[in-house]
């Protein structure tokens, strides 16, 4: 057995070299991290388990083997998918406190999906879109129209679950609504793209900013649009129907008939709607990643990158600028729409205040922080910022106040730096702004950049409009 392994190693010199390099790095970085965690009281079996899994995925240089990168992808995927089962047994992180709850996990996944959608527009095609929230809003309101009591004069039921058949309104199964939202939002993307995509760079950014402002205003004032109540104004529309597969599929293959009423104990963990929402969101993210990868490596993906690098040359090589850019918009909007509709169903409501300008910037931050154009970077950036927004900042604030505030003075207080507790989440956008500035200063290409983008940031692109290219 051992000899066999040796022989195999000899046949794969790259693997051995890379694995040794990684083992050294893991020993240094991982050792320090492990010590910090252990000293701060996080020492537990969970920590050892997590370290072991992380080492098993990182140290053997899977990437150098044939089909080896799949091991890492599937390993991480399994780790995320099993999260609801071991989340309760995890340790306390220093400063950040507890690991995110499953509920936060759903929000993180939805924001990751939106960030991936925006990544197609900003990362691939290089079109700065400051109004991405418009697509998110469109998706959410589509869900509200087709799966709630909003249009109470109609009475249409199609595969909806957990709704009394006599309830007024349009009630279509959420799965169909997700699809409707995606298609509808892409069409809106094309319509918005038509007048705006003729512009370049800064001008495009300003116009998309305008659309991002128009959408929430329409949502806010849409309770009397040409005599019709489309959005129910500032109150928003709720409740929105939950997802589910209906009784037939439930009895046939055991899929949950209605997410909200689901309750079962699996592997000692009680599984209810949140966990189901989590897994469904994970599937949606997988779908988005799949499409992103395929698009990136396609004829269209090449054309997007070409346009980003040099519009004039791309046009001269036969790339139709308007059409190609519009496709980028439509693809980005597609995923924004699904994410919006799904989030509306998860929150069981949609409100105009959810769609203000700062959300556009928030999603853009995720893309920039993670690394424009790189799917894995965007996933990391999206997950991290969404987590900070939902739980992280609150936890950090709690930790700061515990140790430095006079108001909550206790045995844990190290030194008193301020008198009354600081509400850290209140400063969220200031903090995100600082993060953005730091990223731009020290790592403008993002945490995990695509090799191409990195070079562009370091050396610039030939995008100065030498000619008046007509579209």
């Amino acid at each position: 057995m051992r000899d066999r392994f040796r022989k195999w190693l000899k046949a794969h010199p790259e693997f051995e070299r890379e694995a040794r390099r990684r083992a050294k790095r893991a020993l240094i970085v991982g050792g320090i991290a492990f010590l910090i965690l252990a000293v701060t009281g996080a020492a537990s079996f969970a920590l050892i388990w997590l370290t072991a899994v992380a080492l098993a995925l990182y140290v053997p240089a899977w990437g150098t083997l044939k089909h080896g990168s799949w091991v890492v992808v599937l390993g991480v995927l399994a780790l995320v998918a099993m999260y609801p089962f071991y989340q309760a047994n995890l340790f306390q992180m220093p400063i950040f406190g507890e690991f995110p709850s499953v509920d936060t996990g759903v929000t993180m996944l939805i924001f990751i999906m939106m960030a991936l959608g925006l990544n197609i527009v900003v990362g691939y095609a290089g079109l700065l879109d400051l109004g991405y929230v418009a697509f998110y809003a469109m998706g959410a309101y589509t869900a509200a129209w087709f799966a709630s009591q909003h249009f109470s004069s109609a009475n249409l039921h199609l595969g909806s679950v957990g709704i009394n058949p006599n309830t007024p309104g349009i009630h279509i199964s959420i799965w169909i609504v997700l699809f409707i939202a995606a298609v509808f939002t892409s069409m809106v993307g094309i319509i918005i793209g038509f007048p705006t995509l003729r512009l370049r760079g800064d001008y495009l950014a300003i116009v998309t900013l305008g659309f991002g402002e128009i959408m929430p205003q329409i949502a806010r004032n849409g309770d009397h649009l040409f005599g019709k109540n489309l959005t129910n104004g500032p109150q928003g529309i709720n409740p929105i129907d939950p997802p589910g597969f209906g009784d037939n599929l439930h009895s046939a293959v055991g899929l949950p008939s209605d997410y909200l009423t689901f309750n079962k104990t699996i592997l000692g963990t009680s599984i209810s709607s949140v966990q189901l929402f989590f897994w469904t969101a994970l599937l949606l993210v997988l779908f988005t990643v799949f499409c992103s990868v395929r698009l990136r490596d396609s004829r269209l993906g090449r054309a997007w990158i070409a346009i980003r690098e040099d519009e004039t040359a791309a046009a001269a090589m036969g790339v139709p600028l308007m059409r190609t850019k519009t496709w980028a918009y439509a693809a980005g909007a597609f995923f924004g729409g699904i994410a919006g509709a799904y989030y509306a169903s998860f929150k069981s409501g949609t409100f105009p205040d959810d769609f203000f300008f700062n959300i556009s910037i928030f999603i853009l931050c995720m893309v920039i922080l993670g690394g424009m154009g790189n799917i894995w970077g965007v996933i990391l950036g999206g997950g991290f910022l969404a987590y900070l927004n939902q739980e992280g900042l609150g936890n950090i604030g709690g930790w700061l106040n515990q140790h430095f505030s006079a108001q909550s003075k206790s045995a844990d207080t190290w030194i008193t730096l301020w008198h009354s507790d600081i509400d850290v989440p209140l400063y969220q956008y200031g903090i995100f702004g600082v993060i953005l500035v730091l990223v731009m200063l020290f790592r403008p290409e993002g945490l995990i950049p695509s090799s191409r983008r990195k070079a562009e940031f370091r050396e610039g692109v030939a995008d100065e409009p030498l000619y008046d290219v007509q579209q």
Partner: protein
Amino acid sequence: MSDLLVAEGVEKRFGGLVAVNNVDFTIPEQSIVSLIGPNGAGKTTFFNMLTGVYKPTAGRIVFDGHDVTAKPPHVITRRGIGRTFQNIRLFQNMTALENTLVGMHCRLSGGIVRSVLRTPGLKREERDAHKRALELLEFSGLRGHDDEFARNLSYGDQRRLEVARALATEPKLVLLDEPTAGMNPQETADFTSFVSKLRDEEKLTILLIEHDMRVVMGISDRVTVLDYGEKIAQGTPQEVQKDERVIEAYLGSGAVAAE
């Protein structure tokens, strides 16, 4: 020999400046035509009108029997005009192979849905495109460089890649804008024979803007001279060399008198 491209009374004004003034111009099929003239004579402006980057202020351009006046660049490329740029405009952060594949864009059909589903037809198309791109790179003398980023290629190789990318659009007419600028004599000689090869073996028609008179006089079937936006002479290299207005434009009015 019929004319592949016919331009009639083409004019371009930038405000009060007339960059190209009432130029009549034809390119016979399978020939090498050179466009020469002092700096600022309007050669590149004329090029840009042929490829749709600029709209002509007046005049008509007919290519291969189709009116292409003021059509957008991608439509003209699809009709069969490929071009290179005076200052190299490759996609710097794409590999040589990817650059060539972008050139094939208008000859491929894979749309958004088929790309996501990766249908067998699309796979075949992509495979064939890769093969053709590699062939083109080899033909242009870039064998073994296909996975290199364009910005890492040597200057001469970047020029060659621009031509490969232009050829990938499957053109009938190739427009080369000062292709030998910055090349050493050996590279220039290689490139000149390469251009002849394009005409003789690939049956392409070539329009050349060039300052190196050895290149122009060596390979051109016809030379057209522009000065201050106007056509001042046209003919075989020998005829143009003897034309008094050309000598005057290049060397000043005293030159003719002194002779």
